[in-house]
């Protein structure tokens, strides 16, 4: 331990719904050092948020952790009691949610909602907590903080509210900030401001960030490492350069092809990934992406591919990569 702030090993997590078991996470492993930014990308239901939430012990009912180890900052999260994990939440790990319009409690003032978390995790007095809240609002770039403290969420705009959410998240100077699609619900201009603010604060406070998004543009500009998730698995993992310049998995390649580019010729169409996401209640026996994969081989439909590594960081789960590497290995001999 010690080396990594976050070290999740082979996490398996399922939701036991009335319709059957949904295997939300299958052998998910992520590692993150202090101050690093990890992007988790993938489509809806691929397990991005579930991975992050489970790290805070916030797995929603009826989800259940079935295996794996979740190390965070010297804690082994899955072994902690609810009481112990509450001391970590909001304190060592904080989270910003997708929709700032609904993430703040409408009946309490901004000040109340910020000081609440400060007073919970520190022994600051009411006055000190208020002072800290004012500082935080200033830090996240909200003007007239004194006035804002007394206002209610409905009196602020979406961008402002997300700044307040960030202030709440940073109140206790967390080691890890989880950002769950923090800009999806915001206007494009505000999106850029919020991302810029997050990066600025990261440099100032030195926290690590897990950025959950389906926007590849966001990860490209912010993250050092990227995990691409599909159907509850990390199907490709690497540095930002690995993912954008040397993508190996067909799904990642597809994602990158589907980004609009400035140098696209007129009349040239974007290339979408055909097909529909996996039915998580009845996942296929083999690679979950195989039914949508242009290059699928017979084995892809039958068996889950093993991990193929390229260098220290970069790895994929793909038969095609496995085959290529084996052929490469064979030709070397």
């Amino acid at each position, binding site marked *: 331990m010690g080396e990594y702030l976050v070290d999740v090993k082979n996490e398996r997590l399922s939701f036991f719904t009335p319709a059957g078991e949904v295997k939300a996470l299958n052998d998910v492993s992520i590692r993150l050092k202090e101050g690093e930014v990890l992007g988790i990308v993938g489509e809806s239901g691929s397990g991005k948020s579930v991975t992050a939430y489970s790290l805070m012990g*916030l797995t929603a009912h009826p989800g259940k952790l079935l295996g794996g180890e979740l190390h965070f900052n010297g804690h082994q999260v899955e072994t902690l009691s609810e009481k112990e994990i*509450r001391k970590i939440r*909001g304190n060592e790990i904080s989270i910003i949610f997708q*929709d700032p319009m609904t993430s703040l*409690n*409408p009946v309490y003032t901004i000040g109340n909602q910020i000081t609440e978390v400060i007073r*919970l995790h520190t022994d600051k007095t009411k006055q000190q907590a208020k002072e800290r809240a004012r500082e935080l609002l200033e830090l996240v770039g909200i003007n007239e903080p004194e006035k804002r403290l007394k206002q209610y969420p409905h009196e602020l705009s979406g961008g402002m509210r997300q700044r307040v959410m960030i202030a709440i998240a940073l109140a206790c100077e967390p080691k890890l900030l989880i950002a769950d699609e923090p800009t999806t619900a915001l206007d494009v201009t505000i999106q850029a401001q919020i991302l810029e603010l997050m990066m600025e604060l990261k440099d100032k406070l030195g926290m690590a960030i897990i950025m959950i998004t389906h926007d590849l543009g966001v990860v490209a500009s912010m993250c050092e490492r990227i995990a691409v998730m599909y159907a509850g698995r990390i199907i490709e993992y690497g540095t930002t350069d690995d993912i954008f310049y040397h993508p190996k998995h067909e799904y990642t390649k597809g994602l990158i092809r589907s980004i609009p580019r400035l140098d696209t010729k007129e009349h040239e169409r974007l290339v979408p990934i055909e097909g529909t996401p996996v039915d998580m209640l009845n996942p296929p026996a083999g690679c979950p992406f195989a039914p949508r994969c242009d290059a699928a081989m017979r084995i892809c439909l039958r068996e889950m591919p093993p991990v193929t590594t390229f260098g220290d960081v970069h790895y994929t789960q793909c038969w095609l990569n496995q085959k290529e590497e084996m052929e490469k290995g064979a030709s070397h001999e």
Partner: protein
Amino acid sequence: MFKYIVKRILLAVVTIWAVATLTFFLMNLVPGGPFLSEKAISPQAQAALEAKYGLDKPMSERYLNYMTGALHGDFGDSLKQRGRTVMSIISMKFPVSARVGGISVLVALVLGIPLGSVAALKRGKPADSIISVIATCGIAVPSFVICTVLMYFVGVKLGLLPTMGLESAKHYVMPVIALSFYPTAYIMRLMRSSMLDVLGQDYMRTARAKGLAGGKILFKHALRNAILPVVTYVGPMLAYTITGSFVVEKIFVIPGLGGEFIKAINGRDYTLIMGTTIFLATLVIVMNVVVDIVYKLVDPRIKLK
């Protein structure tokens, strides 16, 4: 806020006037009259009585007379209860009903809010099912059934509680149970559904992510949001309950206002009908204003205009 209250008072005066006018004419459309029942009396005596109470005059004049009196706070004498003014009857009977009704509403709140919340928190578990069954029974079973069942088993068979009157605290138990059954059930259901709604809100997830303990999340973040529909319901419900229930008062022989309503209507006691109707209308209106103000206090998003 001040402007709002002034506006509401003005509006209330108009509403009460409308209620009074409607009641006055509708009541006079109903066949019969206060002095027709009982033994036949001589036409002369009847004419004398009608002259005494002004019933011989044309409707429009009677209406004007009544309204002028009411504006001056004079609601007239009861036509059936000799020597009593309408005001004296209301001021004598209302406190009795208000006490029984007030306790019932309190019981309904004290039981309904926690039980409804528990049902929501334990959704789909046995506790939820039990509470839902009780709530359905409470809404479906009419109060006279509850009264008679209570009276028969608790009062007569077991002899645990007195079955009539209001002399001691013990006397209050059965009427209060009977009166609070329906509102308790209703509040439980309201609370359950609004709590379920609130529990699924994003800000509850935020509260959890802050590391708050379950109790604090529930009492601080959930309850205040979930209680709004109950506030709306309790206002008018309180007005109706404290003015007495005819059925419950009749069965447990409670000398309250609920009985007076029905007696007044059956006996065509015109002045008493008017008096009690205006009284109830005023109470309902006042409660609605109180609800609006409480609403504003609970939820800052609401603007009183």
